[in-house]
């Protein structure tokens, strides 16, 4: 039982219906399947990288048989009977028609019809037999294909690629994003799905699909997923954005390797008065830079008197086990007495090195 290996034993009936996720077969007149399929694949994941899931969509383009893709899908993701949880086979006539019309096309390029598709294993259609035949309105093309006006299927990737692939050139008609039900990244001709806009993942160049997604108040900052949270909660060591983005990139090493913390929406320097080696270790580790190579306290230049923003090491920081550096610092009513900033150089731990080859005297 691939889904529940721990409870599977020989007495259990493992078959169950699951939603079809194989992209090739998502426009079938049924939406649940059961495994193993008729090609011996144990899961939809296995089907998705199988030879057959490459072969059939390629063959569809030759127009060898109108219902080839439907047949292929009945093999790849067999219909699941909701009562018995057993797979429903294609009818023998569908299998034979597919094979008769398309096997010879494969032969031209030296490929063989899949071995597991012996049509005799499938039942003849009849009044008392349950097997699958295509309706006249079944989609001839898979969701990975574009249907030409002529009815032929060509790969979706060939749509609007500047080359005529349909016999009637219809794959190059109406090539704007809008016409294809997509969204055009501003300034480019790249099209993305509407669901990708403002989802926290940049898909367009210059993050254009993630701009202007938040309407935050002046006292708020926008999370990566476009939630708004109060500025005072930003980089305080506790997550407030549901994607934790208010605690990302809070600590950096600015010019001169000076430790800088982005708190409440502005940059702060860290007062070196109570700084320790443990904090240096924590900072380098948090930055993914290994351990500290050197640490020094550098005087604040006198050119900016009174304007520097300071954070101080919290007196109880040692009790806050497992916190990031920004959670161990606090604002105080006074400036840094020593006016020393923390300058830190980190050294990455060794990586990517192989042991030296041993020498054996001959």
């Amino acid at each position, binding site marked *: 039982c691939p889904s*529940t290996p721990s409870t599977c034993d020989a007495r259990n009936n493992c078959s169950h219906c699951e939603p079809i996720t194989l992209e090739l077969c998502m426009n079938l007149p049924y939406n649940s399947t059961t495994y193993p399929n008729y090609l011996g694949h144990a899961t*939809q994941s296995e089907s998705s990288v199988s*030879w057959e899931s490459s072969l059939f969509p390629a063959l569809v383009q030759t127009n060898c048989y109108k219902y080839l893709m439907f047949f292929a899908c009945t093999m790849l993701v067999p219909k699941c009977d909701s009562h018995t949880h057993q797979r429903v086979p294609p009818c023998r006539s569908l299998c034979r028609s597919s094979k008769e019309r398309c096997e010879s096309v494969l032969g031209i390029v030296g490929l063989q019809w899949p071995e597991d598709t012996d049509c005799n294993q499938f039942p003849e259609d009849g009044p008392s037999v349950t097997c699958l035949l295509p309706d006249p309105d079944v989609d001839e093309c898979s969701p990975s294909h574009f249907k030409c006006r002529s009815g032929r299927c060509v790969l979706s990737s060939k749509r609007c690629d500047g080359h005529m692939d349909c016999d009637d050139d219809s794959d190059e008609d109406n090539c704007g994003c809008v016409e294809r039900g997509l969204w055009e990244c501003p300034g480019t001709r790249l099209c993305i799905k509407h669901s990708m806009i403002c989802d926290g993942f940049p898909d367009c160049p210059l993050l254009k699909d993630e701009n202007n997604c938040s309407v935050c108040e002046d006292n708020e900052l926008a999370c990566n997923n476009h939630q708004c949270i109060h500025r005072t909660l930003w980089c305080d060591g506790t997550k407030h954005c549901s994607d934790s983005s208010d605690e990302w990139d809070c600590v950096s090493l600015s010019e001169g390797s000076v430790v800088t913390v982005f708190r409440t929406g502005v940059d702060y320097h860290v007062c070196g008065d109570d700084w320790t080696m443990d904090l240096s270790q924590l900072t380098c580790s948090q930055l993914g830079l290994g351990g500290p190579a050197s640490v020094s306290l550098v005087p604040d230049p006198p050119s900016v008197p009174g304007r520097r923003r300071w954070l101080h090491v919290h007196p109880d920081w040692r009790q806050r086990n*497992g916190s990031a550096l920004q959670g161990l610092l606090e604002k105080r009513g006074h400036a840094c007495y020593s006016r020393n900033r923390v300058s830190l150089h980190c050294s990455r731990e*060794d*990586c990517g090195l192989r042991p030296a080859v041993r020498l054996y005297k001959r």
Partner: protein
Amino acid sequence: ILGGRVSRPGRWPWQCSLQSDPSGHICGCVLIGKKWALTVAHCFEGRESADLWKVVLGINNLDHPSPYLQTRGVESIIVHPRYNRAVVDYDISVVELDREVEVTGYVRPVCLPGNGQLPQPDTYCYITGWGHMGNRMPFKLQEGEVRIISLSQCQSYFDMKTITSRMLCAGYEAGTVDSCMGDSGGPLVCEEPHGGSWTLYGLTSWGSVCFSKVLGPGVYSNVTHFTPWIHRQIYLHTFHLH
């Protein structure tokens, strides 16, 4: 690995084996820190619980325990939130070990690429794993040298599927050296021109049915694309901000 050769013990000290009872080795993985490894998301389909897994490091022959062997349980599995099993996109997972490994000559992490650092097409890199060899599963770790292939050229081999920027292709048109079932999650590493250190650019993800007649290059998760996400996950889990 198809068309590879047996690897010398210790030559790839970041290679690990992701194992689950009762089958043993299921996927490859790659050590990137004392407590962190990478593998691909599809290895965990139907087996998402960390308790089911262990990570074995410092091993060459799966059938013979090595004196350098270290075994760790899995503390947590972080599958990329955009992983799409239908088209095998965003196929990457970060694995947190239950305790740090001891860094030795046989167990040590590989480097992650810097921002935007990608291997150039036609450079030669290595893949490793205990996956199928075309006629049998090996006991000893196999290694194979593969050529990096541009995305546009790769797309021409797989016109049924979209090769996305989250993927990297390597291998040969004839499929002479390629990764195969059981290599998933294992490394594609390239030696840096200066300094001799090795950088992880890919994780074995998918390809044609590697022991069939339909050949072509292998497709790997593009680690460079995911480097910021990987660092972020390690940071969030280390500091319990999740």
